[in-house]
């Protein structure tokens, strides 16, 4: 118990520290009206959006990892995020702008999730089948996205490519409010599932023999994960690896299994904030988007995670 509390407190403090650093990044704002406006309308919403979207991704990742009993099975890997991204690319191609990003991401994410869950439905959504079908659908969606990018005229292709590398730079209060609602609703729904989710790790037979409904839990958790990742893509574009790393890192810090929802959400927020802090750095006279940093750091971090958990046996 006390370990969980210590870890949670440390993560929350770390998040606050990063948020403070981000508010000050680029120099302390002036004490005049302009400084106040920069702080209130640019920096604060950006920090909050990063934390909230990170929490969404952390939650969605740990939900799917727990329910599929597979640390690699996250919404970006099994095609939920890919569906959202492909639909956004399509909406930019059709409308020529970012106007329909939100409905496109939601519709795309949910449609690909429905397709994958439908294809894997036989026999109560067996986890292996769901992961493999999801990976296949994801690769197809990535290819489709590439087709859209290649066909798009130069300017539009640039806009699509920029969107497909997640960034918090265009944050505004409307997005923050929506993200806060999504995190609250998603967190509450995930909390409702957590009793059953925490007891899925002895296999489906054991879960059913103990009075749970593993198929229903999987459907609920997968649907919720798809919702969360679609909103995240809609709000900021894809941020690779945040959903994948948050859960395993939380479990390693807590030295326990299970969904570890609050800690995974906090770690997701922490990772997103750290990526955005890196995104403020000047590289070759410009700056790189947060999604690029999570992608750059994510792969090696995942390797370290796999190697260290393997050593521990």
């Amino acid at each position, binding site marked *: 118990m006390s370990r969980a509390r210590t870890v949670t407190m440390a993560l929350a403090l770390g998040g606050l520290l990063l948020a403070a650093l981000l508010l000050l990044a680029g120099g302390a704002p002036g004490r005049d009206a302009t400084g106040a406006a920069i702080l209130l309308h640019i920096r604060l919403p950006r920090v909050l959006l990063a934390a909230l979207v990170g929490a969404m991704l952390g939650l969605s990742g740990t939900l799917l990892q727990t329910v599929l009993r597979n640390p690699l099975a996250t919404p970006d890997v099994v095609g939920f995020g890919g569906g959202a991204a492909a639909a956004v690319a399509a909406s930019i191609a059709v409308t020529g702008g970012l106007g329909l990003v939100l409905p496109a991401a939601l519709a795309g994410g949910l449609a690909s999730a429905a397709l994958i869950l439908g294809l894997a439905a036989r026999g109560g959504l067996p986890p292996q089948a769901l992961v493999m079908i999801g990976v296949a659908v994801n690769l197809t969606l990535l290819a489709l996205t590439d087709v859209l990018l290649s066909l798009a005229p130069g300017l539009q292709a640039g806009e699509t490519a920029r969107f497909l590398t997640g960034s918090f730079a265009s944050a505004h209060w409307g997005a923050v409010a929506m993200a806060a609602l999504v995190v609250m609703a998603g967190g509450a729904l995930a*909390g409702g599932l957590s009793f059953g989710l925490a*007891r899925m790790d*002895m296999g489906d*037979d*054991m879960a059913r*023999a*103990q*009075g749970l*409904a593993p198929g229903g839990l999987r459907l609920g958790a997968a649907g919720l994960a798809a919702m969360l990742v679609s909103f995240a893509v809609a709000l900021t574009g894809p941020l690779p690896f945040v959903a994948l790393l948050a859960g395993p890192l939380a479990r390693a810090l807590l030295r326990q299994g299970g969904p570890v929802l609050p800690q995974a959400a906090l770690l997701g927020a922490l990772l997103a904030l750290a990526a955005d802090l890196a995104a403020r750095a000047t590289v070759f006279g410009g700056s790189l988007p947060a999604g690029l940093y999570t992608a750059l750091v994510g792969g090696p971090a995942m390797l370290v995670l796999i190697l260290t958990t393997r050593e521990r046996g």
Partner: protein
Amino acid sequence: MALILSDLRLDLSGRAILDGIALDIAPGRVTALIGPNGSGKSTTLRAMAGLVSPDSGGVSLNGTPLPQMSRREIARALAFLPQSPILPEGITVRGLVERGRTPHLGSFRPMTATDRAVVDRALDRTGLTALAARRAATLSGGQRQRAFIAMTLAQDTPVLLLDEPTTFLDLPYQIEVLRLVRALNQDSGQTVVMVLHDINLACRFADRVVGIRAGQVLFDGTPEEVVTGTSLEALYGCPLTVIPLPDGRGPMVLPE
């Protein structure tokens, strides 16, 4: 608790797995299901636990067909331990035994003092109190199986279903586990049904032995009544010698 299986039939891809299984499980007794690989004995046990839905026929518990009960109601009446249960990562012995309380808990119904007392008692009855804080992964094979049985005890059900509880265990551990099951049955009158591979152990530790072949019940009775050279040859399709033990505690089976 009356557990009745009536004319269970189940076809899987054209093959009859269960071909009219009818059984009346003796309450308060230990029943062993024996038979060759693929005979349908494990499927019969899983049907009893409500994990397999037969094409026709059904299982009833005190007169209520299982499909009319919720999963949770079934889990409060029947505890089931699969053949190779998965050990959750990093779980302690106590944590594992607490899992048995699942059908009695929920999102808004956390563990209470009563639940903890049931868990304590399950640990005590399986001799695991001193090991409660240990990580279950560090236990010996026999201790680990005892911990899983303690988990089913914490489920606090009148019926216990065990699918080959002695697989992968050395002989002393097999005996340890079966002695424990027998003692639990004698202390509390819990009805036990288990699938066993070893006929000698089945005869020694069960009140009733049920022979299943090709999805049908071939024989059903006390070991002395039903375990004979003829019945076993019919069950396994190879000649076997059955010798009555001098202490009168069941027959012993040897290859011809």
